[in-house]
């Protein structure tokens, strides 16, 4: 390149250990955010669909607020704001909690939409056969909704993976934070960012592939 910047792949090679550690933390955060966020989201959707008194409007309001404010500011609020109330938690706990809350909020809507997309006639037919409403939900509606929700839940999982990079705000040493620290001391911006950019794209591809396989295994013969 002509602007006095010579590529030096050796720099990244010398720091692969740190980057691998950062990658490890990114994967850990993503898995926690995805699994707990999906579980909590399903629970929230059930509360909403069943119209549990008191709880349902609270879940609805929380979901709206979380989805309409920036996750980045939520992280600041949790990490720097809550200690004012004496609630101080280590970076890892805050990072995990922020991702779980965020992905749960999106998954409530994902699952709610999926439950709403199950044709009403199944529900009616099951009721007509004498099944109790609870059984209809557990044995008929839910199994179909889970399958319908796969694509959007996968999508939220991918966003959770990418959002784990926001933990750079609280200096939690995931992949992006590690990379930015390396760039700040070395200015090896193209080398470092190419490598971690590729890492994110590969992680996304791997995650999507896994979810596709799961989706196909769960699929019913039509």
């Amino acid at each position: 390149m002509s602007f006095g910047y010579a590529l030096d792949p050796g720099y990244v090679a010398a720091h692969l250990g740190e980057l691998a550690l950062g990658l490890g933390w990114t994967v850990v955060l993503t898995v926690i955010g995805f699994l707990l966020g999906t579980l909590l989201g399903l629970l929230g959707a059930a509360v909403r669909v069943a119209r549990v008194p008191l709880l349902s409007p609270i879940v609805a309001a929380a979901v709206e607020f979380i989805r309409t404010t920036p996750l980045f500011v939520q992280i600041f609020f949790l990490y720097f704001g809550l200690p004012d109330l004496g609630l101080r938690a280590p970076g890892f706990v805050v990072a995990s909690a922020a991702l779980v809350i965020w992905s749960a909020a999106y998954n409530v809507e994902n699952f709610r939409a999926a439950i709403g997309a199950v044709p009403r006639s199944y529900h009616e037919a099951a009721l007509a056969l004498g099944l109790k409403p609870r059984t209809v939900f557990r044995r008929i509606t839910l199994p179909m909704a889970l399958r319908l929700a796969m694509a959007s839940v996968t999508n939220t999982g991918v966003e959770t993976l990418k959002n784990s990079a926001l933990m750079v705000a609280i200096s939690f040493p995931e992949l992006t934070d590690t990379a930015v620290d390396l760039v700040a001391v070395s200015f090896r911006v193209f080398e470092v960012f190419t490598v971690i950019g590729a890492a994110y794209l590969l992680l996304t591809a791997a995650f999507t592939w896994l979810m596709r396989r799961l989706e196909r295994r769960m699929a019913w013969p039509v």
Partner: protein
Amino acid sequence: MPAWVPPVARYMAQGLEATLLLALACSLASVALGTVLGIAITGELPLLRRVVRLYIELWRGLPLILILFFAFFALPAAGVRLDPLEAAGTGLTLWGSAVVADNVRGAILSIPRAQREGALALGLGWLATMRHVVLPQALRRVLPPTLNLLTSLIHGTSLAAQLGALELLESARRSIQRLVLEAGQPHSLPIYGAVMVVFFLICYPLVLLSRWLERRLKV
């Protein structure tokens, strides 16, 4: 009202102004660039289509904060000087235009093939078909996702704080630092809480409008 509030509020109002300007600039740039790219990817030049597809996959696939850092560190290394706000704007536009392009592509492809074939059969060229037949229908469908993107872009402006750009979140952070220095009291909870509420108040009308349009267009 406690005495510390008015000066902080005045300072954060400046930050809010920067946030709104940044959001406006990125939205306009993203929609303009993204629409052109989205049309190009459905066009008839294979090489251009491949390049645009790569552009979309790349910027949509990376964490937004990483794109901002890239713009912040990489462009100076390539000889372009940007202040933090401009770097953030560049990063947000790269990402936003990729999202718009993908939405526009989806909307164009959702227009029934017969429409395009009919126009061609009537003797319209590619450009005239696009302008008079496909785009007027496609752009209506792309409205709700574009509003959602605007919300995401407004949210995304908060990432500029990480580059040190003085927008709303950064103005909150600096206010807290000053309060600690002057009075030993951070007041982080109400200040960051207020930042969230301000973002909510700006974005919620957009969210509601997008939902309403989506319902209306479906019928």
